[in-house]
């Protein structure tokens, strides 16, 4: 990564441009440091409605409401939020609602905080058990294409898709300031 410490690597800006190009109307999230730049870009853009959730499962229901009304949405969360969504995901399968979740992974690579590990380990499996297609994104040079394809999978083919952004790609969290 070329950027200086604290400055965003530019693939995040490219992911946001992909949201714009593909007509994403609503972005909702429970914040994660890995999504910081994307959240800032979405809030700054008046062509979409961006809002925080109190818990990740709210985003599953919001995605359903958005699609019923003709909007495309993206849900941003970190891996520990995935477990909060499980029962609400029954809505997605029953109504075949397009769902796109971008998950930033914690607890899998150089993790300082062991409390992140159990849900991290269960993230992919629990989503797959609920019928979602899950793809890991390890390489920042692939991330824009992967997001672009996932938007088509979700909103053209009405599939539930999650992309897991690997902790190695995002960078290890600095614990000492």
């Amino acid at each position, binding site marked *: 990564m070329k950027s200086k410490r604290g400055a965003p690597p530019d693939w995040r800006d490219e992911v946001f441009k992909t949201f714009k190009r593909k007509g994403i109307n609503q972005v909702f999230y429970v914040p994660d440091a890995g999504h910081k730049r994307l959240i800032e870009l979405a809030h700054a853009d008046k062509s979409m409605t961006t809002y925080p959730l109190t818990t990740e*499962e*709210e985003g599953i*229901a919001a995605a359903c*409401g958005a699609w*019923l*009304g003709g909007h495309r*949405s993206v849900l941003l969360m970190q891996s520990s939020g995935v477990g909060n969504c499980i029962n609400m995901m029954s*809505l997605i399968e029953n109504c075949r609602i397009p769902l796109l979740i971008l998950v930033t992974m914690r607890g899998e690579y150089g993790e300082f905080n062991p409390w992140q590990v159990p849900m991290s380990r269960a993230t992919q499996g629990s989503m797959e058990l609920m019928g979602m297609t899950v793809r890991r994104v390890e390489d920042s040079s692939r991330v824009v294409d992967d997001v672009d394809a996932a938007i088509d999978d979700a909103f053209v083919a009405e599939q539930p898709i999650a992309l897991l952004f690997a902790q190695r790609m995002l960078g290890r969290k600095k614990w000492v300031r």
Partner: protein
Amino acid sequence: MGALIMANAKPTKSKSVKPARKAAKATRLERRAVVRKLLENRGDMLVVCGLGSSTYDVFAAGDDDRNIYLWGAMGGAAMIGLGLAIAQPRKPVLVITGDGEQLMGLGALATIGAQAPKNLAIVVLDNAHYAETGMQQSHTARGVSMTAVAAGCGFTWTGDIDSMAGLGVIREHLERRAGPALATVRIEASEPPRALPLRDGVEMKNRFRRALGLQTI
């Protein structure tokens, strides 16, 4: 409790947030009559109903392609309403749900209050019980007020309703597009005959989208 919360909340047009324990002894309305009245001459209103009795009540009032009947996803009705209200800002969106369903999605009231959609109202049909699972008492039977929670979340109108004549205010507020509203309507803990709408979620989604002129797959 209610008075304290009101003192700290933004000013609202609500008459009062009564302590629920006292209000629980007030008149309770018949749920089917309440829902029929709420949906009378509905115009272009879009309706989302929480699982269980609320879904049966809305269907009993007359099927409509613009109804979303939930059979699961407990706690999700209000957030479906929010996503929909943002996507369809010119149409009034009414969420009709029960106390138990909304209690599972209390955080959604904070999310809605923070987002403040102009065209969303929530009616909590409050019988103070979980009717679907054997009439166990809910938190509202022990003094929890959804109206006070919504007021604290910044809803622009909140109120307890215990008369049929009082129901008109929620529709009026919604039609004025005056910001998020929540009404707690006190209903009897009755179990009217089940009225069962379609359970095929894909069909329900497609007919809803068609009714809005949206493409289906």
